[in-house]
């Protein structure tokens, strides 16, 4: 009965009398946040209670709350060994949130129930009793200032409002961080920064009919949001490109991103502008694409999203076209509402209508649509037909669909290095506007200016991609080198702007910053943040080393093409990412993570047996056998809970309070279609 021993380290402090506090105040002064090089404390409150999430009674932990120019940090007065359970980030503590990860602030009356939204530059009442922070990764933190010195709650809230929503891009902490950086990136990671990187990719894909042009790095640049290197049909002249670019949104002429040795290529382009010659310009370029195919097969254009979408969607096997970015953001907000209940009662109320909430958010429909487009594109490409993905500015959904298509077709991208290279290629080098989509100020402009521009739409496009990748991973558990923990961590890191990876709108902005001595720190140096142990959890123990027979049977022999189930009925909610902060759902020995750990243990046992075998064979050869060999010990797999490594052990009661579960027992009449059934004989 392991789980019974779990310590409950949440004590109720809410009703602690101020007298007791007096003793503790002394020690509060000792509490200090762990600061990084260049990090400064800008606000602090002591004797703060952090409420346990969704706890039924008012339970919480005493501690001090700090706001720095990098993070919000809560330091509990009584640290517990349970705090070290699960993933530990060396830069962000268990109870810390990087400021760029703060989503919304709410003023509360001290408890979790009544609340009012606090907006940047809005007024904060002097007697702030409580503060609730909803993070962009759906974690909810609730603080109570009832025992704190008067006014300190307000100070923290003001500091947070000021620093978490900076007005200028260069106020972000990445520009202040002074720690020297020594890159240790893996050699097989392609950053797609220099022309040579693209050349490597062309050679890897064995596509001789395409050429590299650096015209976009010159004063004749026409695609300002992409890097200097573009790959275009071998027969097209730079001059033609410049001409044609006038007819495409953001100058996004079709450019090569991936190809097969057989000849078919995957291209991305922006939508056509309603100019007079745009159709002609497009057909000229598509003709060049056709000529780059060794069999001269004409390409297939998939309209992923945009004005041409309605007509195109019908062609794409009935996939619903993807929505405008604003609609995607609305879908995400509804999903976030569903995943961030603030009270236990609210949690169970949502539970009883969970599926209608899920449907009304439409998030999973958009996920399914992306997968459908990708499946369609992959089908065309496996039939050796080139595909051009066309969409608005050519930087959002086309990146999602293009990445997914490559994941379906190219085994290389299913490794960790490959996946990171893919993100570098499709998202970083080709200029997905991360600042705009994540709601950060743009470099060089103030936030107000950015907001006035029509294109600065906030939308979780990258999350949509990670979610789709997770769906593939769930459907093909042995096909990916990375685990869902890797993807979830990646999503968390999207909101940690110490790293430059997701800090800029386009390569040009990054170069301008680098010219001003900005130090680039790619996220891909995972050792900067995590221990070996935590990084080990990124690796899927089922991946690789498949025996030849199973290869054949899964049909993977056919170029490793994955055939996903892309219908709404086949996709599921990414529980680890969205629901990991909901303690009522956590349970020991539950969930998919058990598969991962069991397989990891199995792998370890096999490894040990292998070692034992080889040592035995050495022994036999030398036969001086003074050593003794022990049987491999079954390495004990720890008892972990459903959301490991993200759940906080001890933040919930293991034998869940069953009276609260009774709240979930729905009103009996709700389940009935008609009263007559109620009275029917049993």
């Amino acid at each position: 009965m392991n789980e019974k021993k779990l310590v409950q380290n949440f004590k109720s402090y809410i009703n602690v009398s101020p007298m007791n506090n007096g003793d503790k105040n002394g020690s509060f002064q000792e509490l200090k946040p762990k600061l990084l090089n260049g990090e400064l404390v800008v606000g602090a409150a002591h004797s703060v209670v952090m409420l346990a999430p969704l706890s039924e009674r008012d339970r919480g932990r005493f501690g001090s709350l700090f706001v720095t120019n990098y993070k919000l940090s809560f330091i509990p007065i009584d640290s517990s060994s349970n705090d070290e359970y699960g993933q530990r980030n060396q830069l962000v503590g268990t109870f810390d949130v990087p400021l760029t990860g703060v989503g919304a602030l709410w003023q509360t009356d001290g408890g979790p129930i009544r609340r009012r939204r606090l907006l940047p530059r809005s007024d904060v009442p002097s007697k702030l009793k409580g503060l609730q922070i909803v993070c962009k990764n759906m974690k909810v933190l609730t603080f109570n200032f009832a025992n704190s010195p008067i006014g300190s709650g307000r100070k923290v809230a003001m500091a947070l409002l000021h620093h978490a929503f900076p007005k200028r891009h260069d106020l972000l902490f990445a520009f202040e961080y002074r720690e020297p950086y020594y890159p240790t990136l893996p050699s097989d990671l392609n950053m797609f920064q220099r022309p040579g990187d693209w050349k490597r990719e062309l050679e890897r894909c064995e596509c001789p009919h395409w050429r590299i042009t650096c015209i976009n790095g010159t004063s004749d640049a026409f695609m300002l949001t992409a890097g200097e290197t573009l790959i275009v049909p071998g027969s097209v002249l730079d001059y033609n490109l410049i001409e044609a670019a006038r007819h495409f949104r953001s100058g996004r002429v079709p450019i090569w991103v991936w190809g097969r040795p057989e000849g078919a290529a995957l291209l991305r382009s922006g939508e056509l502008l309603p100019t007079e010659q745009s159709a002609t310009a497009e057909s000229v370029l598509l003709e060049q694409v056709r000529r780059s195919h060794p069999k001269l097969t004409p390409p297939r254009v998939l309209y992923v999203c945009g004005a041409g979408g309605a007509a195109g969607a019908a062609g794409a096997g009935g996939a619903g076209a993807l929505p405008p970015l604003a609609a995607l953001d609305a879908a995400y907000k509804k999903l976030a509402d569903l995943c961030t209940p603030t009270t236990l009662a609210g949690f169970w109320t949502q539970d009883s209508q969970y599926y209608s909430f899920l449907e009304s958010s439409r998030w999973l429909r958009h996920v399914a649509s992306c997968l459908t487009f990708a499946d369609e594109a992959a089908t065309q490409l496996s039939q050796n037909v080139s595909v051009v993905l066309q969409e608005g500015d050519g930087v959002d959904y086309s990146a999602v669909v293009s990445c997914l298509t490559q994941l379906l077709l190219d085994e290389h991208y299913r490794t960790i290095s490959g996946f990171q290279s893919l993100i570098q290629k499709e998202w970083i080098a080709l200029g997905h506007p991360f600042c705009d989509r994540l709601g950060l100020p743009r470099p060089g402009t103030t936030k107000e200016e950015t907001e006035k521009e029509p294109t600065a739409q906030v939308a979780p496009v990258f999350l949509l991609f990670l979610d789709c990748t997770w769906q593939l991973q769930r459907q093909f558990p042995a096909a990916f080198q990375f685990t869902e923990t890797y993807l979830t961590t990646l999503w968390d890191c999207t909101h940690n702007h110490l790293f430059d990876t997701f800090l800029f709108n386009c390569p040009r902005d990054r170069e301008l910053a680098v010219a001003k001595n900005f130090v680039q720190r790619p996220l891909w140096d995972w050792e900067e943040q995590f221990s070996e142990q935590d990084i080990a959890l990124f690796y899927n123990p089922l991946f690789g080393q498949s025996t030849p027979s199973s290869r054949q049977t899964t049909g993977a022999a056919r170029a490793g093409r994955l055939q996903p189930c892309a219908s709404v009925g086949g996709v599921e909610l990414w529980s680890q990412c969205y629901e990991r902060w909901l303690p009522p759902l956590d349970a020991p020995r539950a969930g998919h993570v058990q598969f991962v750990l069991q397989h990891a243990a199995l792998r370890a046992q096999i490894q040990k047996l292998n070692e034992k075998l080889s040592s035995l064979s050495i022994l036999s050869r030398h036969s001086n056998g003074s050593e003794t060999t022990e049987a491999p010990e079954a390495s004990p797999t720890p008892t972990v809970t459903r959301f490991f490594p993200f759940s906080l052990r001890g933040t919930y009661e293991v034998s869940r309070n069953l009276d609260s579960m009774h709240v979930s027992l729905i009103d009996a009449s709700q389940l009935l279609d008609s009263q007559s059934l109620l009275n029917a004989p049993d």
Partner: protein
Amino acid sequence: MDKHNSSELLNSDFSLSKNASSDSLDSDSKSSSLNSKHGQDSTHVLGDIQLLDGEKVMGVARDVTYLCPYSGPSRGVLKVTNYQLHFRPTEPTSLQTTLSVPLGVVSRIEKVGGASSKGENSYGIEVFCKDMRNLRFAHKQENHSRRGIFEKLQQLAFPLSHRQPIFAYSYSESFPEDGWNVYEPIAELRRMGVNNDMWRITRINDKYEICDSYPAVWAVPTAANDDLLRSVAAFRSRGRIPVLAWIHPSSQATITRCSQPLVGVSGKRSREDERYIQLIMDANAQAHKLFIMDARPSANAIANKAKGGGYESEDAYQNAELVFLDIHNIHVMRESLRKLKELCFPQIDQTRWFSGIEASCWLKHIKCILAGAVRIVDKVENHKTSVLVHCSDGWDRTAQLTALAMLMLDPYYRTLRGFQVLIEKEWLSFGHKFQLRIGHGDERHSDADRSPVFVQWVDCVWQLQQQFPTAFEFTERLLITIVDHLYSCRFGTFLFNTERERYREEVKTKTVSLWSYINSRQNLYLNPLYWGPSSFSPNTPPSQYSRPQMVLVPVASLRIIKLWKALYCRWNPTMRQQDPIYQRTRELVALRAQLEAAAGAAAGDHAARQLRRGLTPPRVASPHHA
């Protein structure tokens, strides 16, 4: 759909499972659990009819078109045997439309269209199945071409309505193990430590005279004598008195089960019943309280008073606390599953998939049952308090709850054998009315007594498996096989309503047990990730990879409870699991075993060599895997 071309079908085992018409899980499932003979899974020509021992072809219709909802019309030959309906397409490229449907699955058969109906494929028959699918066949519109096969189907699919025997009585295959021996009531009670000071085994119902729907062997409080039992039986609906279902190995807290008390509108009382309940409470020294879990919503419980039933009043039963678990009756569940079927078959409406799931209420019912079982487990495990479970008759919701709670409490029931024992004990011996609820061989498809109570329980078990993937010795494949044969009428296991009827009809001697079949191919059902005790017999040393099991407490939230697509959506080829996780696991486990053997052998060699040299052998691997 180009995903299903025939070369793929012929070459790869895996794609077979994608196209298989029956059991969708593992690689040999083309022949599936439904019509495969032991050991003959791969010998027949693909698509050909494969007859079981005792099976005969009774009717053939040529030039029939099967209107497959997924791959379109397919022409071929329809055959009817005394066991199955079999369709073989003429075109080798459409082999994925091969059908083999046990007639036990058929719920009703209807003619579609008339001789003068216009349009292609408008004239034919439609077969409605109990396993969530409908099959449409089109016949040629001349000479009443469908008449013969329609009549044959009617006769053979509903033998009871035509005074014919069920196929299980003709089926004669023999298996290495006799599954009828899996469950021995006395042995199972002994396993739980009965007889002991507080509980005794009684054969008072040996002739099924006290209660005709109960088993012959009961465990009751030692302090209750036979006269008391008889008086209690008079006060409980259909004589179903409280008897032991499970006893906690350390605390002696018990789960007992019964039917409702015959309280009626006048609020009748029975001193004997009250005393008997007190004895059940007294048999557990740890608590001074007893929980009575009434599975029904309180409104239903009250409504039952008008029919002479009711519930225990806390005034009459001192120290007992009554809890209503709000689980609805068989009619509500039948409606719910009907709605789910509309949602899942044939096509999934993408625009209203999730709201459709919600509207069916199926998952909410599952949640209620799971939450109810969790409450029982909580009382027994955490509060060491005994629980008495009943509903109206104590054979539907009661069986769901006790069997589920026992599965959560006792790791034995999570083994392949233990699970069989659990079904034999809580469902079969305690008289869940399988015949009435399923309607084996009976043409009255709209009979109000039909209800998917057992399937719903299997769904709950699946939910547990999903939540705790390493806690069960078997995989979902076993559950699907059990559901398949719940309907198939190939085995005697789920025939009839009570132990008494099964005894009278000589089921054990005249039919084959489903467990004979399953235990002859255990490997197909074993969970390679199972981390429980590999054996519950005291003589076997525990495997070095096993860990002690614990009580399972599932989360009864709709965020966690999932729709069992592998069961309800399995006819839809686009909805199938793409890459079964266990395939890789089995490879890894096999590799581990190989290495262990090699290491053992190498160590043995080494030791022998050392011995020859007169040295002390090194200590090597523990003996049981050397």
